[in-house]
């Protein structure tokens, strides 16, 4: 491959200046036009605060929101990946029944606004099903140590059942997209690879596990990474059912302090830290997995 040396052309300079000018104008409008008083000094205390009782720094609203967003995205991604893999396998199954299940799932979920899904699942899951299953009683009956562990991994006991509802909704929502990624990945495997595996006498399950899925993972990693990043972003919609993740905390804080710009710029930065670090580490992983091709 020929690598062209990067040069800054006159056009780049003009475009760069134009962007700077627009940014400067917007800031000017905010400062002069809106008479906005910046107060960046107020922000850090909402990230971490000093706790007198514990005699140390503890996460405050915004960082608590970050942690909830991480919990939601992490478990949501894991669940969605499991669900997406199973449904993806259904979509390429020999059995018409399995294919119908996969198809119905994908088309139903992809063709509804996520907000509608959230409401449906919140009222169905969090209401009747969770109470029928006795989730709240179960969590409250646990020992203090187990409750502590659950708080660390998921949510405090009081928020456990809405958190679970939000988590399941997120997983089902993202799972539909992962299903399609997995399906496309499986279908992209050359016919010859399938035939070679069959000819060696591998059963369908063996060839899926040892040959097809490893190849699929290698191929779908870029779109999958995009979906994982989407999960972090989409987790913001569960703020609508009062899950105290980053966006929810932002709205609370803004209502309390009126520091609109500072709060949302901070939140932008926090989301970017989460998503960009994920995107960079997936890039690394991709290089590692593709070592057989270089």
């Amino acid at each position: 491959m020929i690598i062209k040396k990067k040069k800054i052309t006159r056009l780049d300079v003009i475009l760069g200046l134009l962007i700077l000018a627009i940014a400067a104008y917007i800031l000017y409008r905010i400062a002069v036009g809106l008479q906005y008083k910046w107060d960046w000094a107020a922000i850090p205390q909402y990230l971490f605060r000093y706790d007198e009782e514990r005699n140390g720094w503890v996460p405050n609203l915004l960082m608590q929101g970050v942690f909830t967003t991480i919990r939601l995205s992490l478990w949501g991604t894991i669940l969605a990946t499991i669900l997406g893999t199973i449904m993806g396998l259904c979509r390429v199954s020999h059995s018409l029944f399995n294919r119908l299940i996969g198809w119905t799932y994908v088309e139903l979920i992809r063709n509804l606004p996520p907000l509608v899904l959230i409401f449906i699942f919140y009222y169905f899951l969090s209401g009747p099903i969770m109470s029928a299953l006795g989730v709240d009683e179960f969590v409250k009956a646990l020992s203090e140590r187990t409750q502590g562990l659950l708080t660390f991994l998921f949510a405090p006991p009081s928020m456990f059942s809405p958190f679970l509802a939000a988590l399941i909704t997120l997983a089902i929502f993202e799972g539909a997209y992962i299903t399609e990624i997995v399906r496309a990945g499986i279908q992209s495997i050359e016919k010859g690879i399938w035939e070679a595996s069959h000819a060696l006498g591998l059963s369908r399950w063996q060839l899926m596990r040892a040959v097809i899925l490893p190849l699929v993972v290698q191929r779908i990693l870029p779109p999958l990474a995009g979906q994982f990043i989407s999960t972090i972003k989409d987790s913001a919609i569960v703020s609508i059912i009062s899950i105290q993740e980053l966006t929810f905390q932002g709205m609370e804080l803004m209502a309390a302090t009126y520091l609109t710009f500072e709060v949302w710029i901070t939140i932008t930065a926090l989301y970017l830290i989460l998503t960009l670090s994920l995107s960079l580490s997936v890039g690394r992983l991709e290089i590692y997995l593709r070592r057989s091709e270089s």
Partner: protein
Amino acid sequence: MPEKMLGNDIITADKINKTFPNEVQALCDFSTRVRRREVLVIIGPSGSGKSTFLRCLNGLEEIDSGSIVIDGVPLDHKKENRLEIRKEVGMVFQLFNLFPHLTVLDNVSLAQRLVRKKSKKEASETSMELLRKVGIPEKANTFPNHLSGGQQQRVAIARALAMMPKVMLFDEATSALDPEMIGEVLEVMKNLAQEGMTMIVVTHEMGFAREVGDRMIFMEEGEIVEEGSPDQLFTNPKKERTGLFLSQIL
């Protein structure tokens, strides 16, 4: 070459028919028997059904009617029979079809471990032995994409042999190779034949067919036009069509 002793029938294909969904009839009442240690060479123009016949023998294509029995096991709708037959029948493809995410050693070891349930150590030992046999033990830890076509095809042969098959099917194993690599693959196949492996070879390599083949079938449009010893087909074809085809290809 001394006359080799052939054993009893290992493959019986009786009146098999295969029509593809696009209405092309690939095999038309095709019957043949193959004896142990026999090397059967199948030739014919493209689209004559040679590859389809091979693919039917290990169930990669399903036959519409007729019967196939390999070493006493009928190839029918039972999953166990199909897997049993595939264990005993090795296949080498035109485009190698190695597993790109596995090293050469793992390519050869995979089925031994999963299907034959061998331990990792045992499988690796067998694999190394086979890689020595096909002449590339030094590539054991390389990924397939780093190998030449000839080397890849030799790995594919080793991979098929690792299952200790009773029959080997070669589906135009040298057709996708650059001319200078054809020899190394044919050499491996020749050695296999000399060791007494039962082989069905679909090929356009007439020199190989004549030297190694015990029997040759010329087929066209899903039917056997003529069969006999390679020498007889080359020097004294009974059907005009056979002579015409061979004169075109030689």
